[in-house]
């Protein structure tokens, strides 16, 4: 290979062949593609944040909700208890069955007797 000018000539031909011909005119405007790509990227990021926030709220709600269903929590929160939870003793009737006093004497532990709620029975009630 011949040195010097031949190599210079080769290099000049090669590099000049790489130059764009004709040289492009200046483009002074916003690239729609890049701005569109930027907008799409931003909306994706926002969507992901919204999804993460929704999932977080879901977990928070599921964690908080069971705490509100305990009895203590209900009374504190003003939620009325079921009717059977706190039963009051009804007042006794004035006319009692003769055997009732004995039964109560024999069974002092009874707080109340079912027969207290029974109507007074009298033989005269059997007359037609």
């Amino acid at each position, binding site marked *: *290979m011949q040195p010097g000018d031949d190599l210079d000539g080769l290099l000049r031909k090669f590099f000049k062949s790489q130059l764009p011909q004709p040289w492009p005119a*200046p483009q*002074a405007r916003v690239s729609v593609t890049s701005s569109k790509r930027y907008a799409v990227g931003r909306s994706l990021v926002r969507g992901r944040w919204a999804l993460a926030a929704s999932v977080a709220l879901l977990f928070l709600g599921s964690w908080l909700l069971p705490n509100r269903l305990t009895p203590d929590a209900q009374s504190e929160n003003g939620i009325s208890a079921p009717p059977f939870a706190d039963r009051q003793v009804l007042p006794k009737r004035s006319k009692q069955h003769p055997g009732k006093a004995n039964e109560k004497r024999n069974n002092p532990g009874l707080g109340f007797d079912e027969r207290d709620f029974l109507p007074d029975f009298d033989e005269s009630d059997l007359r037609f």
Partner: protein
Amino acid sequence: MNATPPPADAKRADFELLYERHSREVWALAYARWMNADTALDIMQETFLRLWKQMESGEIILNPRAWLLRVARNLAEDHSKSAFRRNGTHPPHTMNGVQAQGPLPLESLEREETFAQLRGVLEQMPKADREILTLRYALDYETGEIAELLSINATAVHMRLSRARQRLAERLKAQGVVQLP
């Protein structure tokens, strides 16, 4: 008496002047990085697009040439990441096939073959050497102009240019390039 042009027109005129002065050397630096003319053109146009946005926003650039070269180098480096994602392990230049619209004359084929061998050797050289070679042989820059653009002294440019040419000659000879088109 000449009226003062409106600011928008003046801005546009300044932009076009900067483009005329520096677009080729911006292209040359991008080309030296990638050895691909199309990629270098994309990087050059993106660089000037960013310059236009800066000017539109009213920002003042004290040294436009240095700003352009810095942005071009950064974009060229960023291109490597996106190029890997797009092309995988294939370097960009292998994706540019020869667009044969018909049978090429023998002379053109020989020239393309020689250019392909030269490109292969150039790609193995350091990027800094490719920058000097591109500025010298594509744009016909003198040693002093190259030194000013690359912020090195003229002696260093001369020495690196000589060493690069010597390395090129040796490698082309080793590849059997005996006759230059």
